[in-house]
């Protein structure tokens, strides 16, 4: 076994690739603009990294990919599938229908109708009502008439009992065919009907994007003769198999930030640091605490939708190498727009007509770009004062973000990663030192490459003191099984965390148990 792995990051601007050996040494790394078809960008960067490393494609054993494609699709309301929502739980919940409290434009871009039907369970798993299959059947024919492309099914207390969701899924498959995408809420979210349903709906609307990304990747790998097992990075920084990722794309939504923070930790060798990842379209400022990602607290809004899965706690700024700089009187302004992957066409240094932050940094000699198409001489005569002002603005916004995340730690080291991070100055307020590790422009891809595979179980249990040990053993076993299903090698799986929360204001001893297990990819 050679143990080589390929880490990739398909970002909004660039597609990065790194080749690493068994001992996590970086053998080759490359970058290429992300292409609309995804595959070309993957090809180009992968080929370059491979040839640099002199590892043969056939020797690659694992491919680990991180992507922001899903998040971008949601933010831009593009390439979303039309989703039909099934909620099982009448007579409960009629007053707050599916898609409630969603941003109107997102709802318009993906809602394909909804139905609330009878069924559901009690918190101890007893059925509350029988599944109303007749009503479900009527709803499905209505969905068919409307042409929905994906269906999400959410049942009351499905994290405790899954039967009604599974039965409904069977009916969907029978009506729409076996390959029709169905999202079951219990496979994605935890307790909290509205939040779990929202997660399922978001997942269902992302299946097209996920297929596109996975398809592009598979095609590229196949064509290069790579027969490795394939993983996608998810929100907590762990990885899941490609087939899992196409089923649960919503779980990749926070992976961009997770990968850069983990990658920065790996490259710097630090377990505690502030990470600043300046990419092409956005900048993340996050924290690594004792080698772990700090996760968000409580409900999180994703693209304006309330969900309850945890994502990395980062401050993201609409700011990157491709951000457009405008002159506003004597001042510089950084526009919300980014030229994204069109940087190499639109930016001034590439002969385009858009003044970007990359141009400003190049003009001041802060950035070195290896692309031969980029010519610094095109920037001669540019207003360097404006450039300086633009970069000062970037510094200010990054320092403000550091202030938000730094937890009062005066002696934190800031690790700068990302392709455009060199435009930040040597010294930033709020941190004691600034460190730019080698290979920093590939932190995302590195973060993906080093990911382990995880499984998680989040369930309600009613138990007395004597049954606690037994219950925990069952839940742990389930989490390990989940990890193995997600692609972990059996035997390498360890329990990472166990969280028990007693249910409040209830006479019985009900406890919510969360277990997470990690393992090496198989």
């Amino acid at each position, binding site marked *: 076994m050679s143990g080589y792995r390929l880490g990739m990051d398909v970002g909004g601007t660039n597609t990065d690739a790194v080749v690493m050996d068994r001992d996590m040494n970086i053998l080759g790394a490359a970058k290429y603009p992300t292409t609309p078809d995804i595959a070309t960008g993957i090809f180009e960067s992968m080929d370059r990294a491979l040839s640099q490393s002199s590892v043969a494609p056939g020797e690659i054993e694992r491919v680990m990919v991180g992507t922001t494609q899903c998040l971008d699709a949601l933010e831009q309301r593009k390439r979303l599938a039309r989703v039909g929502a099934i909620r099982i739980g009448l007579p409960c919940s009629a007053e707050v229908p599916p898609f409630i409290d969603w941003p109107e434009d997102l709802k318009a871009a993906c809602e394909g109708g909804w139905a609330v039907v009878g069924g559901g369970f009690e918190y101890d798993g007893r059925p509350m009502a029988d599944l109303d299959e007749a009503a479900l059947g009527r709803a499905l024919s209505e969905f068919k008439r409307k042409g929905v492309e994906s269906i999400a099914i959410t049942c009351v207390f499905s994290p405790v009992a899954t039967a009604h969701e599974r039965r409904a899924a069977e009916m969907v498959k029978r009506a729409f065919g076996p390959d029709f995408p169905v999202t079951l809420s219990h496979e994605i979210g935890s307790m909290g009907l509205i939040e779990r349903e929202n997660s399922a709906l978001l997942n269902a609307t992302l299946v097209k994007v996920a297929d596109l990304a996975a398809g592009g990747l598979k095609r590229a790998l196949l064509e290069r003769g790579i027969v490795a097992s394939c993983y996608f990075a998810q929100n907590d920084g762990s990885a899941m198999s490609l087939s899992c990722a196409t089923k649960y794309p919503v779980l990749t939504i926070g992976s961009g930030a997770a990968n850069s923070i983990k990658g920065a930790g790996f490259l710097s*060798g630090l377990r505690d640091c502030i990470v600043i990842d300046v990419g092409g379209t956005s900048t993340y400022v996050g924290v690594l605490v004792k080698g772990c990602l700090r996760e968000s607290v409580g409900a999180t809004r994703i693209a304006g939708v309330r969900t309850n899965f945890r994502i990395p706690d980062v401050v993201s700024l609409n700011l990157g190498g491709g951000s457009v700089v405008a002159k506003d009187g004597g001042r510089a302004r950084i526009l919300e727009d980014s030229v994204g992957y069109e940087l190499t066409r639109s930016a001034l240094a590439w002969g385009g007509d858009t003044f970007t932050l990359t141009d400003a940094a190049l003009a001041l000699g802060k950035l070195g770009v290896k692309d031969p198409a980029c010519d610094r001489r095109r920037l001669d005569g540019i207003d360097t004062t404006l450039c300086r002002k633009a970069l000062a603005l970037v510094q200010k916004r990054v320092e403000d973000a550091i202030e938000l995340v730094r937890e009062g730690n005066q*002696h934190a*080291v800031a690790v700068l990663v990302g392709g455009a991070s060199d435009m930040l100055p040597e010294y930033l307020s709020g941190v*004691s030192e600034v*460190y*730019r590790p*080698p290979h920093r422009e590939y932190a995302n891809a590195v973060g993906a490459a080093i990911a382990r595979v995880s499984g998680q179980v989040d369930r309600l249990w009613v138990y007395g003191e004597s049954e606690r040990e037994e219950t925990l053993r069952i839940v742990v076993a389930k989490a390990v099984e989940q990890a193995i299903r997600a692609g972990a090698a059996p035997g390498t799986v360890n329990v990472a965390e166990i969280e028990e929360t007693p249910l409040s204001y209830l006479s019985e001893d009900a406890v919510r148990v969360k277990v997470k297990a990690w393992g090496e990819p198989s």
Partner: protein
Amino acid sequence: MNRPELQKAAHILTFVSLLTGAQGFVADCGGRVLASAGGYDRTSLPPDHPARSVLGSDSVYMIPDESRSVFAVYFPVLSAGECLGVLGLETECKETGERLARAGQSIQALADMMRTGPGGSQHAFVPEGPLVQAVIEMLDEPVAVIDATGRLTHLNQAGISLFGRGAIGEWFEDRFPGSGFTAAWARLRGEGKSFVNVDLDLPEGEYRATLRAARSGPRTVGVVLTVRPDSREPGSPGWRFTFDEIKGTSPAIRKAKEMARKVASTDSTVLLLGESGTGKELFARAIHGHSFRASKPFVAINCAAIPESLLESELFGYEGGAFTGARPGGKPGKFEVANGGTVFLDEIGDMPLVLQAKLLRVLQDKEVERVGGIRPVSVDVRVISASHKDLEELVMKGAFREDLYYRLAVIPLHIPALRERKEDLYLLLEHYLRRYRTLYSKTPKRLSSEVLKVLFDYDWPGNVRELENTVEYIVNMESGDLVTLDSLPPRFARLIARETTGDPGMSIESAEADAIRRALEIYGTSARGKEKAARALGIHRATLYRKLKKLGIDA
């Protein structure tokens, strides 16, 4: 660190210089990069690099590093005994290396320089100069700058009014012995904190203050002491009154507060109109407290409470020998005392016409002339006046000068009567209930629905002041937890009678008699007790005496 300087220095040196942070990441590197050293640009020091042994220590490290055939010297950059990084100099040339070793002291000085000076992350403390004065003047709360020896070097205006100008140049402990300052300072230094909070025990009372250390490297070069504005007792010098003191969330009071807040930042003359007891003086104080004159005096005078004959000298002062009984040296008037600040003229409608003319001149010329004085003294004051009388009507009747009226009423502000904001009654009742039960160490109380009804139906001609007195009375009268009708002052008797029917005449009389008896039990039957009882009952002292006679109460 003083980055630009170092960068320049590093680049002109003929040897390699490097500067790292506390964890060994290279922040800067300059000079001729040695092939053998491999260059340090933006990397971490290798784990076995000799400079690492200096990190976290305070000793200089010198070595002919034979493995890399360089001569090197590494200096810790220290601040407050903490190693912030390493300054290193390396050369391939043996002679240069020896020179470096000899120059150790001056290089350490260079390392020392890096952590201070302008532009660095640690600002040098400059204990003198007009700059410090200018900075502390920006602050509204009292600020004192104290040097390393414990001597007061600077005070801002608010600080002068608290500590006194004479304190400047004196040792704090000598001036205010036993204030707790020295102990706090010892803590500040001993525990290495950047600031500590302390209860300063000053002659005028106790103040919450913060001591912040000014450090230059490991040395504490002084402290800055700030007194928290919310810590002072009302009425003490420098106490800054805010609109938060005016309780109420009703639209009427919110509007008044909002208007007053806007007016406060201007320097216009304000006329407060409202019934007596509505809290006009609170508004005047809050406007002063929110103005740029906040740190200067606020002087209030009630034109109705001072005999006409004395009002003029009270306002404008007098020269020595101006009239019989006058102080030989003369006395400054309220306007002079308030110079720089605000003069509050309450019950301006009661000011005699003669004085109105003189006041008008003060407003126009910004000068006052003492009684019997020859030379006018220029004053800079803001005038806030108040009246519960209809001034326009007085103007029409000729009892108030029209020109003065327009001078004073540049911004008229209506302070709502309590009956215009009954929504606030709950809040005010609760506020005063808690205040007086704490003051008199009584148990917490709640109001019966009958009492609530009476209080809500009542017209409150005496406004918040009357309400406060009523609550004080109730707290003293009611021994149980539930306040009943029996505990209300007798003037509510008519309302109560209407509530309970029966023989109204009888019940009023007997209720009144009961209430008066109990009030006298609490406050005593001395003249002072009776005065207090009258105030608690919400009636005039003379009325009380009359009623005592009428009801045949023996006191």
